[in-house]
């Protein structure tokens, strides 16, 4: 896999963490300033992605302007909560514990009698209840919701549209999981959070890699080739990656394209949002 360039598989995704951290801080600071928000509101799961964003946000605007919200369900593992609490204690930011078990149970109880719900539907419901909770807390705190999805999971569609994918801005959405780990180590995210298996915490013992049948380092290298380097799939396979896996990744990207875009608006009039009415998200009042 080293090829003519002499690169090792690790090198190609290796980042200068100090520099990338500076980029992310600049991004957060600027977007908080342009929205005029007093605080940033973040859903803290105990996993590495939200942990990293918490550390970046605290470094960018100060821990005193960060409000983290822990939103477990009954199926959330106790270690997730403990890990989230370790972050709160390390950063010294404000935290709120708002269980979404009751609203989730209410939604499920409200389904037509006898209807069973798949784990995916249940997981999507939970993700959207967390979104609802976060946006409401942001109204209370005069804050903005920061996104915590990484590039790997967004590219394969391992996210819930209008759920965890919803945010005002996302500082780590162009970082692969491998890079999220590297940056987290640099910023002092607790080791047990960096090293534990990534999980959507949908049911006890669930892991992304177990459920998806992949490991992130390999997934990231395949995504990097398909997306960043625009390589044909056959060239990726020729490098030694498993054919079935490469085709499956490509298919996951293709099928989740809609999750990464705003919904299309039917163009009927003369000037339409998204087509030919194109303004920055925030702009000053002109004289």
């Amino acid at each position: 896999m080293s090829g003519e360039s002499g690169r090792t598989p690790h090198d190609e995704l290796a980042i200068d963490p100090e520099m990338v951290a500076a980029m992310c801080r600049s991004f957060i600071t600027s977007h908080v300033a342009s929205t005029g928000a007093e605080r940033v509101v973040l859903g803290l799961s105990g996993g590495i992605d939200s942990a990293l964003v918490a550390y970046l946000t605290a470094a960018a605007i100060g821990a005193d302007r960060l409000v983290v919200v822990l939103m477990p369900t009954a199926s959330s593992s106790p270690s997730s909560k403990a890990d989230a609490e370790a972050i709160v204690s390390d950063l010294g930011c404000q935290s709120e514990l708002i269980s979404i078990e009751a609203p989730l149970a209410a939604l499920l109880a409200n389904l037509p009698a006898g209807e069973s719900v798949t784990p995916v539907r249940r997981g999507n419901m939970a993700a959207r209840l967390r979104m609802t909770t976060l946006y409401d807390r942001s109204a209370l705190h005069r804050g903005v919701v920061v996104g915590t999805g990484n590039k790997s999971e967004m590219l394969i569609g391992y996210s819930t549209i209008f759920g965890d994918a919803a945010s005002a801005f996302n500082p780590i959405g162009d970082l692969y999981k491998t890079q999220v780990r590297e940056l987290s180590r640099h910023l002092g995210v607790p080791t047990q959070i960096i090293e534990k298996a990534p999980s959507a915490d949908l049911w006890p013992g669930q892991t992304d890699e177990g459920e998806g049948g992949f490991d992130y380092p390999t997934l990231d290298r395949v995504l990097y080739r398909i997306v960043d380097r625009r390589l044909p799939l056959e060239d990726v396979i020729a490098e030694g990656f498993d054919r079935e896996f490469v085709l499956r990744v490509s298919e996951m990207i293709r099928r989740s394209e809609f999750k990464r875009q705003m919904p299309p608006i039917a163009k009927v009039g003369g000037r339409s949002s998204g087509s030919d009415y194109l303004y920055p998200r925030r702009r000053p009042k002109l004289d």
Partner: protein
Amino acid sequence: MRRRVLALAQIAPALGDLAQNFALHQAKIAEARAAGADLVIFPELGLTGYQLQDLAPEVAMRRSDPRLQALAKLTSGGPSAVVSFVESTDDHRLFAAAALLEGGEVRHVARKCYLPTYGLFDERRFLAAGDAIRATRAALGGSAVQGDVGIGIGVCEDFWHPTLPSILAQDGAELLINVAAGPARGASVDADQGLGSAASWGTLLRATAALTTSYVAFTNRVGVDESLIFWGGSRVIGPDGVVLAEAPLFEEALLLAEIDLDEVARARTALPLLRDERLELTRREYDRIIATRAGLEEA
């Protein structure tokens, strides 16, 4: 000796906020004056912000705009300034322009000739491309004894088309100025400074200085417009291609560098690349290629 002090104002303009950006320019001109600068250089679209889209016509200014004229007035006691804005014209076109303000007036305007419209860029959708490449003479705080300095201004992408700085140098520029709004991309440990865009610009700018045997002053902005994070790294490079001063990445800065324009004469004596350039040969071959592409000549 023709010494001049350059001040590169690596600022973070507010997107679409003219009032705030004018105030920022005024403050930096004052700061540069206090630091003894002869010329202060601001980044591309420093007065308006970069990712304007449909805001472009709303923030556009004529050269005669009173706000621009008022800014020019600040240069009557020095330092001179290069500022960048969206220029609107009588025929209602919009340009990404960079103006030399000197002696209280708008002395010269360079319009961006190469508008990147690929990948993350969409400039041609909103702006018109300039169609003149002209060097100019500027006092830059100099006395009659010291004489004028030949300067040439390009806007960001302009320098990625090496004909442009090359023509500016042939047209009399000793100091090539690039005002930029360069977004960071390609973060990797494999790249110089950990950033692909910083590495490629670094190579380009040193090569441009060396190939034109000119000073190069590159002012790139910092801050954020929408998804884009601008990387800064403003720098001054000598006519031998050596970096003389360099600003940090991603942080606001006022980078000061003293240059001696007599170095340009010495560099061009030692390495007479400009003298030996074959303009007629270049033109003849371009004419042939143009005619061939148009089907006017056999390939």
